[in-house]
């Protein structure tokens, strides 16, 4: 559990997510996102109860969690879909997942590496945990906007491109 992170996180990867989160929330939800000071997260529990999780493969591995309070997630889903939805409904997680897919896809464009994005998964409920890589720190960016608070939790690293030409 207390294993030390041995690698540094690449600042350009973090910047890509910051830019992309603002852009996607602005276009799809119509809100301006205010970012707080990034910090390192050491425990496997995400900041809030609703997690949109996107895994990366290829030149970048690991995962990124967009962690929302239940209320924020509800508000975001409402403006994204144009109607209120219960967190129990399939469409609720679908909307959160698609939003996270957009954020990851746009971030990937920003960092310009040959990375693959997985199909996003969404977990709702208090006390759930996220499996993270222990050799890179998890960077947490607190976010604030008109519809509530959320956090972007970035636990990814660039891997050596030994197979770059084989495709």
């Amino acid at each position: 559990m207390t294993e030390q992170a041995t690698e540094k996180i690449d600042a350009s990867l973090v910047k890509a997510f910051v830019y992309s989160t603002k852009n996607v929330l602005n276009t799809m939800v119509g809100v301006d996102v205010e970012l707080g000071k990034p910090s390192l997260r050491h425990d496997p529990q995400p900041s809030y109860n609703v997690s949109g999780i996107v895994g990366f493969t290829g030149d970048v591995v690991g995962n990124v969690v967009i962690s929302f309070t239940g209320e924020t997630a509800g508000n975001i889903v409402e403006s994204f879909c144009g109607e209120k939805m219960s967190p129990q409904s399939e469409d609720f997680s679908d909307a959160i997942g698609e939003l996270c897919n957009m954020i990851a896809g746009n971030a990937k464009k920003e960092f310009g590496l040959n990375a693959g994005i997985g199909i996003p998964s969404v977990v709702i409920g208090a006390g759930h945990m996220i499996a993270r890589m222990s050799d890179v720190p998890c960077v947490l960016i607190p976010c604030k906007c008109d519809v509530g608070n959320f956090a972007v939790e970035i636990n990814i690293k660039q891997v050596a491109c030994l197979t770059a030409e084989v495709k």
Partner: protein
Amino acid sequence: MKILLVDDSRTMRNIWKRVVSGLDDCEILEAGDGQEGLKTISENGPVDLVLLDWNMPNMDGLTMLKKVRENDKTTPVIMVTTEAEKLRIIDAIKAGANNYVVKPFTPDALKSKINETLKKASQPA
């Protein structure tokens, strides 16, 4: 006009639906992945426009596009994707996509891409 919407996210299909339902006389077909998309085409016959997501389970959009183009070179296909790197877009164009829209987009941006694509497709080459 028949429009096929292929995306694993129902939310996205609903957003597209709101946009395309403004078009004249439009029948909307939906599929949740590439395999379902191909099945929908084989069961319902040719469509007039396909909006196609890239990142989907079972069969992704690029694979579906390639399969469609094996025997149909003309149906306009718009790739809707977050995969905005140039190389990927070139892959899609090479595989026969007529246009692409990058997510996130506003409804107006999608509408104008659709109109642009349909207009081009209706012009004699």
